[in-house]
């Protein structure tokens, strides 16, 4: 039962970035004693100032970087390519392959996710319908608008129908209409049973959809709070200042 | 595991390199040498470092041809009688650096036999500097002898060396036997065909002169084509006037 309840667990995680320059190594402590639980089925928002460690926590969960200390469990397992196959990730900006079409990108990522051709075709229909990609699916990604690229980015994260969706600054660079659309997508996905972890700067937007929020300060969780209308900004400022 | 695989392949690559090296007998020669320092350029060095020796040699050979086709005020022969608009073949310009240019080309690309034979012929039979021609040919032939190749290489150079040695000892008229062999090669410089034709012409052996000069009627170099046509017309006139007299 425990495995089902927790989508993501961080236990006393520490992470130091080391950069080698010819004759010296500089160290930056990104996370220290970082502990956090994210429950299955919830929308959890990770808030913090720039450099607080939000993206580091996300990268650790995705196995893109490795912890120096502590334990991490993703859907009940240690981060690995296998468990990551059950996670969808949307990065902060639409960093995609500009010379491929969205269909080609989904096809490649579908193959890498282990989907056979019929499942890929079914998944493509599903996400095109869900995100109204229409004819844009056959257009080169580099030629699409920023809003459309953001939708492609979300779509690629959904191609393998993940249980946990990690969104790093999903509203970044979107206009108000785009933000509203993105919020609707996130709510729909959550309604389908997907757990959502998102990082954001936009407290007002986070307040509209998150059930709980964690506030990060200097690599530690300062507080984890249930999101109540009108109180998140106050809680955030109290924690980080 | 990955590192072990890397190590295994690395050892295999070292062994294969050694194996390939056993069949690789080629040794390059320096790009710079005091033998031709007056014409050496750093551009050769850079091209060689990027693996383009042949391009470097082509460029230097074309520079050689340009040098040999231009008038150089500081190299005008004392007492020259030729028109100042005419270049090589007239005795107007000495072309002091011709040997250095040729050596620079030959050292860059040891396979470039045309550059060697062309310049050796020019040095020996046009500029009358047989010693430089012999030095150039010897440099090329000695290099290939040192390579101990199983197949004969630079055979034409040996032929030219013999021809030029005979020219030096007995005069150019005696070198026709070797030159006749040289013109049978498809890549024989057209200049050599014109020179041989000229030798026959001067010896009043018009039959052979026509045979050799006709080879240049389809020359890629308009200059040699023009000279061959002019000479053939002259022979034609001489033969007609001779017939009329008789």
């Amino acid at each position: 039962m425990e495995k089902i309840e927790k989508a993501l667990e961080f236990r006393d995680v520490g992470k130091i970035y080391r950069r080698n320059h010819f004759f010296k190594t500089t160290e930056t402590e990104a996370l220290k004693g970082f502990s956090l639980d994210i429950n299955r089925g919830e929308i959890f928002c990770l808030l913090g100032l720039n450099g607080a460690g939000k993206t580091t926590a996300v990268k650790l969960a995705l196995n893109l970087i490795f912890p120096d200390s502590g334990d991490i469990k993703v859907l009940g397992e240690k981060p690995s390519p296998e468990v990551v196959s059950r996670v969808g990730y949307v990065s902060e900006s639409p960093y995609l392959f500009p010379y491929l079409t969205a269909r080609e990108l989904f096809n490649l990522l579908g193959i890498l996710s282990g989907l056979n051709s019929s499942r890929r075709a079914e998944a493509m229909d599903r996400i095109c319908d869900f995100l109204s990609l229409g004819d844009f699916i056959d257009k080169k990604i580099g030629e699409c608008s920023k809003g459309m690229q953001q939708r492609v980015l979300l779509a690629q994260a959904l191609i393998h129908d993940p249980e946990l969706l990690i969104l790093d600054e999903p509203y970044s660079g979107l206009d108000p209409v785009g933000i509203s659309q993105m919020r609707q997508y996130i709510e729909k996905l959550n309604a389908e049973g997907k757990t959502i972890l998102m990082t954001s700067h936009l407290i007002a937007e986070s307040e509209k959809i998150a059930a709980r929020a964690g506030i990060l300060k200097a690599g530690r969780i300062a507080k984890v709070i249930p999101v109540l209308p009108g109180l998140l900004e106050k809680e955030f400022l109290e924690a980080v200042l | 595991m990955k590192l072990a695989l890397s190590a295994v392949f690395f050892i295999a690559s070292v062994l294969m390199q050694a194996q390939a090296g056993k069949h690789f007998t080629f040794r390059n020669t320096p790009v710079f040498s005091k033998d031709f320092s007056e014409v050496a350029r750093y551009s050769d060095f850079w091209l060689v470092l990027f693996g383009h020796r042949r391009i470097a040699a082509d460029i230097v050979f074309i520079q050689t041809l340009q040098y040999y086709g231009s008038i150089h005020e500081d190299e005008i022969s004392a007492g020259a009688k030729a028109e100042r608009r005419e270049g090589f073949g007239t005795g107007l310009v000495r072309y002091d650096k011709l040997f250095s240019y040729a050596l620079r080309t030959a050292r860059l690309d040891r396979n470039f036999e045309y550059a060697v034979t062309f310049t050796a012929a020019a040095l020996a039979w046009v500029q009358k500097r047989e010693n430089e021609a012999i030095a150039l040919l010897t440099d090329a032939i000695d290099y290939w002898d040192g390579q101990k190749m199983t197949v004969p290489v630079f055979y034409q150079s040996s032929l030219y060396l013999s021809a030029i040695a005979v020219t030096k000892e007995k005069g150019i008229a005696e070198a026709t036997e070797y030159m006749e062999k040289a013109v049978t090669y498809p890549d024989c410089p057209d200049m050599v065909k014109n020179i041989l034709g000229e030798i026959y012409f001067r010896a009043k052996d018009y039959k052979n002169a026509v045979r050799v000069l006709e080879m240049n009627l389809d020359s890629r170099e308009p200059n040699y084509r023009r000279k061959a046509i002019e000479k053939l017309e002259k022979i034609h006139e001489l033969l007609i006037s001779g017939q009329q007299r008789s």
Partner: protein
Amino acid sequence: MKAVYNVAKYTLLENARSKSFSLSVVFIALVFVSAFIFAKLSEVVEIRAIQDIGMGAVQFFSFLTALFFAVKVAFVEGQNKTIYLPLTRPVKRSEYIFGRYLGIILSAALEIAAMGMLLTILLYLKQAEFDGFYFLSYFFIFLKIMMITAVTILISLASTSQASAFIFSFLVWITGHSLGEVEFLLDEMSPAMVTMVRIFKWIFPNYTLLNLADYTAGRFMAAAGYLPAVLYAVFYVFAVMWLAAAVFEKKEF
């Protein structure tokens, strides 16, 4: 293997559509045109000059595009986070990097084949004669590109900047060509220096063995040397790529 194949396939597709690929092809074509103009300076070596400059351009621009793609895959995509897309899938990192490598060298093969074909047609129209060494030269150019692509991927994975990745790869390309150039000095070198040159020949790609384009007469190597030379290039690529895979496995993005 399925992942390697598909990553390679889409890398090829992406590279073939990229601006740098088209630019490279345009540059090579321009060099062909300038080779024709340059070769006009001497009718007697016209064909030789067109062939040498043309083949030199094919080699140099294939090298530049391979360098660009390798740095992009192993460094730039890490910096701009595009690499998160495949790495957040259940694909082994080694499969991904091998797939990317294969895609790049297939792009290089495409470039060499297309430009080689164009050059061959141009030379044919000039009534040039071709021998086996001419065509083999293209294959050996490809082997050289295979080697430098692997080395550039390894260098890029260890680099802290795009500029340093380019510079070090350039230096490897030059070192690879100059190792054979110092051969004539070996007799005058101290034993320590000779040993150093020998070790360098193991570590750096020894292009002297593969620079067939520079010696199309083919006199420099006996026929029995070709297969070991090809195997040398292939084994060297695997040695470097497995090392790159080990580095990539531990690399944080």
